[in-house]
């Protein structure tokens, strides 16, 4: 079983230290080993269940505007703002591989 922890970190945007990566790989490996029992069952003809509900067909709401949240209320909890905008650092032009090298 190939578990590429670095690839998963990049997909999930979760940075781990080298030590954490090792533990993570070990943990994932043992969980997936346990989960392997699912391969015992032949389920190709069984339809999947994606939800638990008894709902047939999602309810559709009428197209009538309603009051949302006051801007001050949402900006006050933001990690960083500029004027009336949420502020985030820019994208870097560097590729992911280069970024990886910077990691401690």
């Amino acid at each position, binding site marked *: 079983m190939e*578990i590429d922890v670095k690839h*998963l970190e990049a997909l999930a945007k*979760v940075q781990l230290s080298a030590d954490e990566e090792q533990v993570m790989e070990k943990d994932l490996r043992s969980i997936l080993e346990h989960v392997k029992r*699912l391969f015992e069952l032949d389920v190709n003809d069984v339809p999947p269940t*994606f*939800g638990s509900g008894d709902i047939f067909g999602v309810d559709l709401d009428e197209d009538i505007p309603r009051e949302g949240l006051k801007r001050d209320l949402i900006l006050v909890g933001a990690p960083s703002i500029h004027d009336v905008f949420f502020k*985030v650092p820019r*994208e*870097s032009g560097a590729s992911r591989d280069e970024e990886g090298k910077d990691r401690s």
Partner: protein
Amino acid sequence: MEIWEMSTKEILSLLKSREITAQEVLDSYLCRITEVEPLVRAYLEVLEPEARAEAAKVDAMLIRGEDPGILSGLPCALKDNLALKGARCTCASKILENWVAPYDATCVARLKKQGAVFLGKTNMDEFAMGSSTENSAFGPTKNPWDLERVPGGSSGGSAAAVAAGMAPLALGSDTGGSIRQPASFTGTYGLKPTYGLVSRYGLVAFASSLDQIGPFGQSVWDCALLLEAIAGYDPLDSTSSRKEPFPYTKHLESSLRGLRAGVPGEFLGFGIDPDVREGFEKILEILSDMGVIVEETSLPTLPYALDTYYVIAPSEASSNLARFDGVRYGFRASAPNLESMYQKTRGEGFGREVRRRIMLGTFALSAGYYDAYYLRAARIRTLIRRDFENAFEKFDVLLSPTTPTAAFKLGEKIEDPISMYLADVLTVPVNLAGLPALSMPAGFVITGEKGKELPWGLQIIGKPFAETTVLQVGNALEQEIGKEINDKIRDMRRDLTRTRECEPVD
């Protein structure tokens, strides 16, 4: 007797007859919290000023002769993954440490309407991921029965608060057992409703297709009361059912004669503690004596439920938790560019178990693995549902212990995720099938070293939307065995007070 020592039903009737005020009730609980919270650590935040204002409002209504709703000033604790407008909602995570919810969850709004007074937000495993409440970024909650043991999880704070007498009622959420397992560990009553009966709007999602909000109480009646207040269709949750909820408290009394109860053999194969097993057999005898037809049955795919759950729940979680990105709210790590801001924020903001599940779910959904893991698990989920459907053609309820063992020790399983996951082996199948299930204290086991008694829970599983049947069975059994249990709870609470007096903490 202090108010906090009374049953919820007694308190409510004294409130309605205006022999005591909501403020007196609140004071009693705040006092109790001051007394034992330093030992138990059930709360992340006690909302004293807000609660006082709410209690005063209810009292004013009672004086004016207005109906403050079915809860009429009863205090209630909320798991910290439920949005209460103006209060912090941290999900016991660093990433949401200072997030103040700007809106009410639907269940919270409904409790407000019924006159509930919110005592505070309770501790939990971070984002409801865990079975011990040790995965809280703000420290673990202790089991009031033995402070060296876990209260279970993830709703450990709510369960411990009710068990310790720090709240008569509490709400939790249950994705794979997060209400029932801590209820079992703390000797409280906890109900996971049918998927869709209670709106999830305002519950911070862990695994959307499995999550349900449900009540904790000191009796079956408490659970029925709290469920009555929160159940019912909510247009804000597209998965909420249009089925009419029931006045559950009014239909609790019922003879169990002729009721058919199935005991799935597979449930008893999961390394059940012999003492729990023995206690369970005894309960089956009591039920038989009450006229219940108890039969063993088989749900062949049940042994696959835990693995199925540990594919589906992390998959959904990996997507549900993507919104914690440091952009709009919550914690943000400082970083020179966007990519590293994301990676560091999420790497530092989430705890170990959450990161583990995000990675596991990301793996199960990723290109090349989706069919083998996520899709396969979704197909097996169908088989598990069908197994339950077949069983419910023959039986009105299914019975099992809620957990294989009584509460384990703090730190005992935290380093071994799989042994921790096994704590949910008896509860997880119910979530996969979307069924209602109650955990009620059904007996005690004696632990080795100190000879302390620890409660274990009975799990009563019902057909979809058959909460009434589940509660009736629980209520009838409670009439039979509840007195002994309540006596032990009283002793435990007194022990706790004494411990506090002897060993002042912090």
